[in-house]
């Protein structure tokens, strides 16, 4: 087992990793920017090294600084948390070159999964379904019409080089395709310099459901059930839960086994998440894979009774993945992300926290690195706490979340707590009628 781990992150996830290390008897090194000198991850690590100024690009994201910190503190592994360098294959390679274990999958696997097109192709080959569509760019409108009629309307036309909604058109009938095609082509040319378009099936109200997996270095991959993450705002998840109301034990076992097999094939090790879009007929379409621990991992920990970060570290140290029994989900867990932001405008609300009181009691977990009188710097993510509840059933979990939200006191900065309180009362939420458009319709 490792003797000392450098935690290449900040905030709650850095503290989360430090907790896991302590429970494994491993010493820890925190890195911090000048803005984070008084942070709890600095306070609770055994050692701490300032790696740069406030800007992430000059500190938490700066590979030479982070590697250098690992070298001068003589650690034998680096835990990247999520975000920052967590899915940076180059960083993972440099770690290996410096004889520091990167806690995550191999650089090759990170790179494979980081290339969304390659990842999809590989997963299709391994047996997972993806949204039907054109493979690669379309040659012409005629080809588009042919592909579209093959997969059925509605379809979505997207810029191959694109993102952010530009060069993107939803098409509901063959008659609409012609004009949509030329508009999208123009937008794509103007926005990205490349007119190439591709086309795939458009899901009206998809759910975002993901599977948590863990692999050891000896070829074994196990899944820990699914998370329902459909409540998002601009692709930022707000509320996550496990299990999903539309996943029964049959689906869980079937999709879970497919995922395990596909990942075992690519030699996956460490923690990872396989994301799916799910249509109303419960078809699971592979979207992408995240090769790291996720923000929302606690909901899985609650229902599966595991410590994913400890497991992650043990896998990286080469231990075999041995579980007494196949993971069984118990009860229901929900996580609300508490962000320092205006609950109406969603604008970040950095500043000094003047009062901070977290809820406790039965079935309540809070992951946070802030405290009374601390400063929430304007430079980073606005996530200040994760409020997680666990109860025997979903309705009980919702009621528990409501009382926990009410007992969560944050003064000095605005937070998303009132937003979560409203969502907990929404009939659609209570009924489990969730899809990725929930927040658009709602807010």
């Amino acid at each position, binding site marked *: 087992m490792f003797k000392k781990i450098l935690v290449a992150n900040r905030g709650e996830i850095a503290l989360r990793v430090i907790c896991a290390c302590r429970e494994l008897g491993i010493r820890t090194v925190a890195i911090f920017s*000048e803005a984070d000198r008084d942070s709890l991850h600095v306070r609770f690590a055994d050692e701490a090294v300032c790696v740069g*100024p406030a800007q992430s690009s000059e500190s938490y994201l700066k590979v030479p600084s982070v590697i250098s910190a690992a070298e001068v503190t003589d650690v034998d592994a680096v835990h990247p948390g999520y975000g920052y360098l967590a899915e940076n294959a180059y960083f993972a390679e440099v770690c290996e070159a410096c004889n520091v274990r990167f806690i995550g999958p191999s650089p090759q696997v990170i790179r494979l999964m980081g290339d969304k097109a390659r990842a999809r192709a590989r997963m299709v080959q391994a047996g997972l379904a993806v949204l039907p569509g054109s493979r690669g760019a379309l040659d012409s409108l005629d080809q588009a019409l042919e592909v579209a009629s093959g997969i059925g309307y509605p379809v979505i036309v997207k810029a191959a080089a694109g993102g952010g909604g530009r060069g993107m058109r939803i098409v509901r009938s063959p008659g609409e395709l012609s004009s949509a095609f030329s508009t999208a082509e123009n937008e794509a040319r103007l926005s990205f310099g490349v007119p190439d378009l591709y086309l795939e099936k458009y899901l009206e109200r998809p759910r975002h459901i993901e599977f948590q997996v863990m692999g050891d270095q000896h070829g074994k991959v196990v899944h820990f059930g699914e998370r329902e993450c459909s409540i998002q705002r601009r692709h930022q998840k707000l509320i996550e839960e496990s299990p999903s109301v539309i996943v029964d034990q049959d689906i869980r076992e079937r999709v879970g086994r497919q995922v395990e097999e596909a990942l075992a094939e690519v030699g996956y090790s460490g923690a990872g998440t396989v994301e799916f879009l799910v249509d109303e007929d419960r078809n699971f379409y592979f979207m992408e894979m995240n090769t790291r621990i996720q923000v929302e991992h606690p909901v899985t920990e609650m229902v599966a009774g595991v410590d994913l970060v400890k497991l992650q570290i043990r896998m990286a140290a080469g231990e075999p993945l041995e579980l007494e029994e196949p993971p069984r989900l118990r009860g229901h867990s929900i996580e609300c992300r508490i962000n320092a932001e205006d609950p109406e405008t969603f604008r970040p609300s950095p500043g000094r926290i003047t009062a901070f009181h977290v809820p406790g009691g039965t079935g309540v977990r809070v992951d946070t690195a802030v405290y009374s009188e601390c400063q929430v710097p304007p430079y980073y993510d606005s996530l200040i706490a994760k409020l997680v509840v666990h109860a025997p059933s979903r309705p009980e979990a919702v009621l528990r979340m409501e009382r926990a939200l009410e007992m969560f006191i944050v003064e000095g900065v605005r937070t998303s707590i009132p937003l979560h309180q409203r969502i907990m009362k929404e009939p659609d939420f209570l009924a489990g009628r969730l899809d990725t458009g929930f927040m658009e319709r709602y807010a």
Partner: protein
Amino acid sequence: MNIDQIRELIQAVCDSGITELELERTGVKIRIRKEAPSSPAGSPTVTVETTGGVAPEVPGATGAAIPEGSGASPPAAAEPDLHVIRSPMVGTFYRAAKPDADPFVQVADRVRSGQTLCIVEAMKLMNEIPSDADGEIAEIYVNNGEPVEYNQALFGIRRTG
């Protein structure tokens, strides 16, 4: 002194995080205090105390009190006015180009701006750290071969000229 001036003062107090400010003028006496927040981090909270004496007409005297951060700040300076050279990166501090070579500088050496003072090694790269002032080496804060963090004080230079 009008209300706006007082408001500005309050702002200055809050921004600086100072604990107390007392200001006396013919006919006007102002005292501003701020309780030091007990951070759970209990870390060496920046409790700067500005006892801005009489300061007849300089409310800006607050600015004089520069708060000291923890860690990376220069060790308690016997000499307060030294110019401090800080490490631009995390790495290992070396006083000489090679293990058997002479140190680049010694205490009491005169140095010029641009002259190499030491090396900070990061990721096998030897980064020469130059002086950015003319003067005399008064203090060397780090021992040869020790790790340094970003912005850590390396040398104190007594400026000349």
